[in-house]
């Protein structure tokens, strides 16, 4: 297939890269042709980002060779790569929302008058011409932050093009876009292809990848697994290659298949109806029974993390109703949510724990109003903390040690511990096992199962299919802010989850 492609513009040969002894890329080859849109897919940690960072000059140290238009190149910095005509549009835009569209297009390269001041009229004129030539309908004088996200993304693309990029890397460009915005982006990409530019399109959204790409490369575990022209492949082929069902790896995928228990015959702990929050999720409805673990899965940016925060009153939803154990509730703040019987462990450890304080204060913070009327009773706090340390197997088993001194897995257990003294009706966990070693992961899974068996309704929200598969009794899939599919009392594998998201 690669043989029949026209002039290769960028070639990578035998690229390897490791971080602290862990191989991120192993002997990877990659070829990008002129005037090609090249899709790049793979699970988190498959090596896509590492490879792109090498191409964009972010990682300067690696093994292997890189050829640009047949000439060997090595970039010492992102600046070198940019000067060579390689531009990258990151998932988090690198624009300044407070500045105008024109200023953003020219960011760092404003045209100057002969007195060395910024030549504003010229800047606006040229920005307007540039945007028009790309078919982007935006006023150069508008403040960037006031424009819709999709348009901002196109403007970032315009900036990258304006800096002279021939190769453009797009990282998850569609995750935050609405369907019409995606269509607009795609028509712009096609026009760029016509003009001979080459585009690398990285995405978790396989439908989008298949729609726009000429060919697709699949990565898995730091290796390039497959490459094929788009008309010859479909979504199932991509998923198979991403998670490795073929090539005698059936055993592995068998392990990945899980029998879901489904909904238990218990009361409804939480009923959500028509919950919407602009820019995050819309019309979310589901029921959580007590004594079940409901997994909510979706790619990064699908709105499930925002949903969790919203349920806990951090960013209250704009529309929709919530019922806790049958009673309608309005959760306008986290303290109300806590008193109503909700508990939440956010995805980032920094935002759930007090690193400077001893373990016992971290454990007692959520129940202070139940153990103390007015004066503190530290002895009681310590007793409670020691009980939780014992229950959850927190190491080292000390209530006095400063939390920041614990390992990540143990910090996560402390974050769970603070909600387990007074049992909540509903426990919401966002990415509960992310970044943990196997042992700590197993501990957390065991704790969550135990909590479920005690009759608490648990919601596990994650962007990792393994996490929901290993924990959930029932799985809901979210895609671009909407609930798209439910898996209950059935056998489910990673491939089906990926296909639904």
């Amino acid at each position, binding site marked *: 297939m690669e043989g029949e492609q026209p002039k290769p513009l960028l070639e990578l040969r035998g690229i390897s890269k490791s971080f602290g002894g862990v191989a991120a890329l192993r002997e990877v080859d990659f070829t990008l042709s002129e005037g090609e849109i090249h899709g790049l897919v793979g699970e988190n940690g498959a090596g896509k980002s590492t490879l792109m960072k090498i191409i964009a000059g972010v990682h300067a140290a690696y093994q292997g060779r890189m050829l640009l238009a047949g000439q060997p190149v090595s970039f010492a910095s992102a600046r070198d790569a940019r000067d060579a005509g390689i531009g990258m549009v990151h998932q988090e835009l690198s624009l300044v929302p407070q500045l105008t569209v024109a200023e953003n297009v020219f960011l760092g390269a404003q045209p100057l008058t002969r007195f060395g001041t910024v030549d504003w009229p010229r800047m606006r004129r040229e920005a307007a011409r540039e945007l028009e030539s790309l078919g982007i309908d935006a006023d150069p004088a508008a403040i960037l932050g006031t424009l819709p996200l999709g348009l901002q993304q196109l403007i970032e693309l315009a900036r990258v093009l304006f800096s002279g990029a021939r190769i453009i890397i797009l990282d998850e460009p569609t995750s935050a876009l609405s369907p019409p915005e995606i269509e607009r982006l795609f028509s712009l990409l096609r026009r760029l292809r016509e003009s001979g530019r080459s585009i690398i399109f990285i995405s978790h959204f396989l439908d989008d990848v298949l729609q726009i790409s000429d060919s697709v490369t699949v990565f898995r575990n730091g290796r390039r697994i497959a490459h094929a022209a788009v008309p010859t492949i479909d979504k199932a082929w991509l998923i198979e290659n991403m998670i490795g069902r073929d090539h005698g790896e059936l055993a592995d995928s068998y392990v990945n298949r899980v029998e879901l228990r489904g909904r238990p015959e218990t009361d409804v702990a939480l009923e959500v109806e028509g919950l919407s929050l602009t820019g995050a999720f819309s019309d979310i409805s589901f029921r959580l029974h007590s004594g079940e673990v409901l997994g909510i899965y979706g790619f990064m940016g699908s709105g499930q993390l925002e949903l969790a925060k919203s349920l806990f009153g951090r960013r209250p939803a704009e529309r929709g109703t919530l019922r806790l154990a049958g009673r309608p509730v309005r959760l306008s703040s986290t303290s109300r949510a806590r008193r109503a019987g909700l508990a939440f*462990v956010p995805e980032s450890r*920094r935002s759930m*724990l007090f*690193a400077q304080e001893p373990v016992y204060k971290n454990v007692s913070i959520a129940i202070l109003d139940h153990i*103390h009327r007015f004066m503190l009773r530290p002895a009681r706090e310590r007793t409670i903390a020691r009980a939780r340390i014992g229950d959850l197997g927190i190491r080292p088993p000390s209530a006095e040690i400063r939390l920041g001194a614990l390992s990540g897995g143990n910090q996560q257990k402390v974050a769970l511990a*603070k909600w387990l003294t007074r049992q909540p009706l509903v426990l919401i966990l966002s990415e509960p096992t992310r970044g943990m070693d196997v042992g700590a992961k197993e501990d957390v899974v065991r704790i969550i199962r135990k909590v479920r068996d005690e009759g608490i309704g648990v919601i596990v929200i994650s962007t990792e299919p393994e996490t929901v598969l290993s924990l959930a009794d029932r799985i809901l899939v979210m895609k671009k802010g909407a609930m798209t599919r439910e898996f209950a009392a059935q056998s489910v594998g990673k491939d089906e989850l990926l296909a639904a998201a």
Partner: protein
Amino acid sequence: MDATARTERRTAGRTRRILKDRLRTIAPFATLVFLVAFFGIASPSFLSFANLQNVLQQISITGIMAVGLTFVILCAEIDLSVAAIANVAGVVIAFFTVQDSSVNIANIPLSGGWAILLGFAASFLLGGVNAAATTMIGLPSFITTLAMLEIGAGICAVLVRGQIAYAVPPLIQTLGSGSIGPVPWIAVMAALVMLISHLVLRYTRFGRYVYMVGGNREAAEYSGVNVRWIVNSVLIISAVCSGFAGMLGVAHFGSAQQNEFDNYLLDSIAAVVVGGTSLFGGSGGIGETIIGLLVLGVLNNGLDHVSIDSFVKILIRGLILLAALIINIYAQRLRESGATA
């Protein structure tokens, strides 16, 4: 042999870590000891009993304001309106007291108790405005209280109209300028405010929340702590403390007028920070503030006892403040690097 060496090294490591952790509190204390020793040797009059009384009196008004500010700074907020609110409370009690016929500021003299109550009510109200603007509208407290500084000055200007009032309610007169035995009442009041605040911060649920909100606001939020309520409370506590300081101050100086406490804003912030309470919130306390007050008090008073060019004194004060701030920030970095390691 080997084992002893290792133990020794470990002990040394631990000592160093404790020193690092405590740098913020040790440094101000060492500064205080040094200043007292220095002025004690440089000037025999410095260590006299009468002068000690002086120092106490001089730091009492700043002290009451600084205590309120300690709550605010522990929450990683700031209150720039303390001096202005003190001024308002002082002017309000004078406004509602019968003045000498030459002073023409009010025609509604109330009994002393009511005037004092109105003084407290005014400071509570202004603190409430600070709180509402900060937590409900979401302005940074730096901006809110900066506006309140102007508003307070404006209220004072409108009430006294450039005049100076001398009479205050008798109770305030006693507390502000009287003394029991050798101890000035105003120092007793300051000590009382400090003691109560210390107990509140160390031993109550509210105090714990203040530290937790200052230590990591987001984590407090995600633990279901009513962060808004805590921030409201500290801003109101600060305003009420300032109001009390202002009322006592008016009696102490024997007059109520515009801009009377302007110097006290920076002094009270300086006292809190020099003492070692973190500007980033979450660590420090009343004990630290007391040390900070004593450092500033000894410095201000001691410089008057040695023969230094009075213009240079201002410079010396500034340099010492800068040093204290640098230590504060440096200690914060050490703490943070220690927390992640």
